[in-house]
């Protein structure tokens, strides 16, 4: 479980996160949703330690990340897998090398064992046999799947996904969403997904946090978010005319 307690983060005069607190449960897909510029990405960067918090704490199973020394942070990071918005695959490495990279750096596995692990991860994301391709030879959806394979290669306890559906068509988006949900349940990971995509919310959201003006504005389940009368959430969820009409019809 990851617990965020009273986190504040500012950039000069711009206060991005205000006393933000939330819990991300183990074995669940936790979604962070909200409009652009509300602090979703900053929150994630603070949680994974790419940015330092001004005050407050981030606890990984009770261990305070902000109070850890360099070595302890390094150890925690080996338990984290992250799927970046643009996949962030290493251009100069093949698909297989990308997946084997963390194994090479942090384990004592033999080359054969690493290759077997890479094959397993690729099979898990339905990309068997694509080992030797370079990232430039992959489609957007395939790149995301390779990035998931790389993220799970070290069997992480925590998985972060920054807008996993951006730039993908609806059917590929659902495929990626389902993959994230499946591996979360399979490995019992604490998964945190940042998204704008309401399909994802309905499809995979076990626990949803709505972030607004840098605050934890609302949290609940996917069933609850559809029924809520919170005006900010209604503005976000039913932003398009189509959705507004749909809501009217459903009502």
């Amino acid at each position: 479980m990851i617990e965020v307690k009273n986190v504040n983060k500012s950039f000069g005069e711009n206060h991005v996160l205000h006393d933000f607190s939330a819990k991300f449960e183990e074995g669940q897909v936790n979604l962070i949703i909200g409009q652009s510029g509300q602090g979703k990405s900053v929150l994630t960067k603070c949680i994974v330690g790419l940015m330092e918090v001004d005050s407050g704490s981030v606890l990984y199973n009770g261990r305070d990340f902000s109070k850890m020394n360099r070595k302890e942070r390094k150890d925690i990071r080996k338990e984290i897998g992250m799927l970046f918005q643009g996949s962030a695959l290493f251009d100069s490495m093949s698909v297989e090398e990308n997946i084997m990279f963390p194994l090479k750096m942090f384990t004592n596995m033999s080359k054969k064992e690493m290759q077997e692990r890479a094959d397993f991860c690729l099979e898990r994301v339905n990309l068997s046999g694509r080992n030797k391709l370079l990232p430039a030879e992959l489609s957007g959806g395939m790149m995301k799947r390779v990035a998931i394979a790389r993220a799970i290669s070290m069997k992480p306890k925590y998985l972060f996904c920054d807008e996993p559906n951006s730039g993908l068509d609806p059917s590929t988006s659902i495929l990626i969403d389902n993959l994230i949900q499946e591996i979360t349940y399979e490995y019992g990971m604490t998964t945190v997904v940042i998204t704008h995509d309401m399909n994802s919310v309905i499809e995979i959201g076990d626990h949803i946090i709505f972030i607004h003006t840098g605050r934890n504005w609302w949290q609940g389940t996917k069933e609850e978010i559809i029924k809520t009368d919170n005006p900010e959430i209604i503005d976000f969820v039913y932003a398009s005319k189509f959705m507004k009409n749909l809501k009217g019809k459903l009502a």
Partner: protein
Amino acid sequence: MSYIESVGKYVGMIRQVFSKPERLKVYYTRTLTEIETIGINSAGIVAILSVFMGAVISLQTASNMDSPLLPKYTIGYITRSSTILEFSPTIISLILAGKVGSNIASEIGTMRVTEQIDALEIMGVNSLSFLVLPKVIAAVFFFPFLIICSMGLSIIGGYYAVTLSELASHEEFVYGIRAFFKVSDITYALVKTCVFAFVIVTVSSYFGYFTKGGALDVGKSSTQAVVWSSIVILLTNFVLTQLILM
């Protein structure tokens, strides 16, 4: 950002670059790759430049020797001295700052804007050490070889330019090359080369690593890397010349 702040940031970066590597075997492999990328792949341009540089130095020297009191072997002597002391280590390093420096800054800058560096950090890899240290080792180790080749090729270029145009004979030029030779000149040139190699890689990596924004900013970082590497090379050249030769 003030220059003092940038220098502080650069020093902080150097400290991190030389922190203990996670996995020596991976660093070793990366260093070999970097020797090929930034060393061997620069050999062609260094060779062409060196031959023509030597040819022009010897022709210029010959054309400016008006006094009949000056012996012809002076052409070979000046060609050798200016090539070893300044032209090969400094001019070739400036050329390498353009070729290798822009390459390093754009490579690391692209990794920064496409979140590849963030990915390394999330994995627990010291991204600065992983990306920069193999390049530093490769450049400091390999650039002296390039410069030694450059010295040889410059002298050969000078020899052919002078002898084919009959401005001096084979014997005169060769005598000039061998006259008043000091091994310390080579040492001085190689010390300078190692310092310049370090400057090129670290300054370019600095601009690449701290790139913010998108593709346009990667281009800007690349330009800044070349400009600042060149300025720092010229400054350190001045300081080293004062320290070693004076």
